[in-house]
């Protein structure tokens, strides 16, 4: 999946598992950018009695690089605090939860958000050790004690869930909005097929192990996620608080990624049922482009990738230039489905541009999201490109929609199909006009269209979570 359980270690730590990152100019508020980072994958809505929550022992960060150096100039840092009203009941709630202050809500979670200006990665772990740099950071608390909504339990416990969730959208002043809590997972994928030897059900008659064609199966359509969503004025993210107007201007592009960090040591003491922590914060999960760690980085490197910062992604260049998936496709779909891809042995400069540097000017008419030569996995968003309000293409840039992935990422973008087509060679023609993509490359799809009820038109754009009483429906 995009980054759900994508690496061995983080698959055992869902609370810190960063599953998707989105960054887009807000369609209903185009003077702002919305940044979304999701955690706690594959939530089955009825998952009580200990319903899903963020980790009080995790720091969640959303990073902004606005000068192309691969390290953040701005970080938004989120921490959580869980409060238990009554430890003598097994219940999450002892009656209907009708407001965020309801005395029936037993286990509540609150959060803080701070903005840090400077390279905030100096605070975490041992990869960066410059105390002087850390001392130069400027930290500003934007909000404290902000309520998360409860999980959506069912009609008896959370009877008016929409109002509860709406009340948990906090206006922090200065044009900043924030939300943290459960939502419907917006990421759609035919998980069962894709990891069954890269089967694509609409094309499985052409697979090495064939079967009749079929429509795709949306494996995440009844699952929830935990979302951190932040909406900020564009000027808050740019150097000198400018609002870029010219898409061709290099300073119009920001890089965005997210991460989760834990303390280096945790001690479990059975004598007093205590949990103790010590040591520096260590990054355990990160995410920029969807599927990067999932399908580009090999199994033996995935945990290391999660611990590194984007500025170190040069170490993974070879996996982007010669991706395993691009080699597999002609093998798994033989009989001349991908003859041109099979013959393509040159480094995939197109994928390097999409994933590690951004697309330079002149590659796609009217578009660029190039941040320079530093190789770093980030979502790159051109802030001067307005949102597409009428019929946005879920194929993003490949569908002729300059406001969609890989120009940042919107919640409904079909990133699996976009990346499948790119890995199949469709985008190689952008940098080598002599290359003729295979016809199949432009057709690849999982055969899925996301249900409209996964999204909403307003912040935080992912729909309220599915409730545990009605989901699954049978």
């Amino acid at each position, binding site marked *: 999946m995009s980054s759900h359980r994508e690496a061995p270690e983080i698959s055992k730590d869902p609370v810190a598992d960063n599953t998707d990152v989105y960054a887009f100019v807000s369609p209903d508020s185009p003077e702002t950018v919305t940044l979304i980072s999701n955690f706690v994958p594959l939530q089955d809505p009825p998952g009580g009695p200990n319903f899903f929550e963020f980790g009080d022992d995790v*720091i969640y960060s959303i990073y902004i690089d606005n000068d192309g150096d691969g390290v953040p100039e701005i970080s938004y*840092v989120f921490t959580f605090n869980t409060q238990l009203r009554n430890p003598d009941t097994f219940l999450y709630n002892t009656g209907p939860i009708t407001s965020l202050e309801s005395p029936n809500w037993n286990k509540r979670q609150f959060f803080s958000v*701070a903005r840090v200006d400077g390279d905030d990665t100096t605070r975490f772990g041992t990869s960066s050790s410059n*105390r002087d740099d*850390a001392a130069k950071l400027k930290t500003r608390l934007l909000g404290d004690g902000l309520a998360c909504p409860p999980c959506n339990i069912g009609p008896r416990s959370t009877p008016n869930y929409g109002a509860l969730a709406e009340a948990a959208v906090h206006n922090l002043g200065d044009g900043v909005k924030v939300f943290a809590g459960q939502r419907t997972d917006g990421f759609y994928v035919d998980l069962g097929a894709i990891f069954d030897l890269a089967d694509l059900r609409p094309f499985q008659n052409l697979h090495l192990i064939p079967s009749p064609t079929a429509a795709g199966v949306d494996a995440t359509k009844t699952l929830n996620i935990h979302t951190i969503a932040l909406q900020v004025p564009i000027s808050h993210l740019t150097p000198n608080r400018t609002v870029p107007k010219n898409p061709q201007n290099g300073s119009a592009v920001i890089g965005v990624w997210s991460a989760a960090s834990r303390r280096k040591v945790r001690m479990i*003491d059975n*004598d007093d049922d205590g949990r103790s922590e010590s*040591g520096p*914060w260590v990054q355990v999960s990160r995410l920029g482009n969807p599927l990067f760690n999932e399908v580009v980085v090999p199994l033996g490197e995935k945990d290391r990738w999660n611990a590194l910062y984007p500025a170190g992604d040069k170490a993974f260049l070879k996996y982007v230039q010669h991706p395993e998936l691009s080699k597999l496709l002609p093998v798994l779909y033989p009989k001349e489905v991908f003859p041109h891809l099979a013959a393509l042995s040159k480094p995939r400069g197109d994928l390097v541009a999409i994933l590690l540097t951004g697309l330079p000017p002149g590659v796609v008419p009217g578009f660029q999201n190039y941040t320079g030569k530093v190789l770093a996995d980030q979502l790159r968003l051109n802030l001067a490109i307005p949102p597409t309000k009428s019929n946005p293409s879920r194929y993003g840039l490949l569908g002729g929609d300059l406001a969609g992935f890989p120009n940042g990422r919107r919640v409904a973008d079909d990133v699996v199909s976009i990346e499948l087509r790119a890995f199949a060679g469709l985008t190689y023609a952008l940098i080598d006009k002599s290359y003729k993509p295979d016809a199949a490359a432009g057709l690849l799809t999982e055969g899925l269209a996301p249900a409209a009820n996964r999204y909403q038109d307003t912040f935080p754009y992912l729909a309220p979570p599915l409730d545990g009483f009605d989901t699954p429906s049978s």
Partner: protein
Amino acid sequence: MADRKTGDGGLTRLSFIKASAGLAAGAAAIGVPGAAALAGEEKGVAIDPSSPSPSEPVMAYVRDAERGEVTVMSGTDETTYRDRALTQRLLDAAPQGSTTNGGVNDVLAP
């Protein structure tokens, strides 16, 4: 005298957010006997713990026994020292014949 090798700093989660002086300093202030006081003791005495674990314990582990390197964590600070005497005392204090986990020695004797 301990030979300081590397250092990494930061603040605790709480102090990080509230931008106040944090537990890093507090942890350092936990009542750990000074080196001078320890110097007079021949060997540690095994006891039952007399109090619950602190929430932010000072932790040390032998990083490289041959080189005499010990890493000490206090709050969100982590410092590695070259200190052969401290390394040896930790190794002497390690339970002998302890089982290993996953084919490697435990945290006190990698």
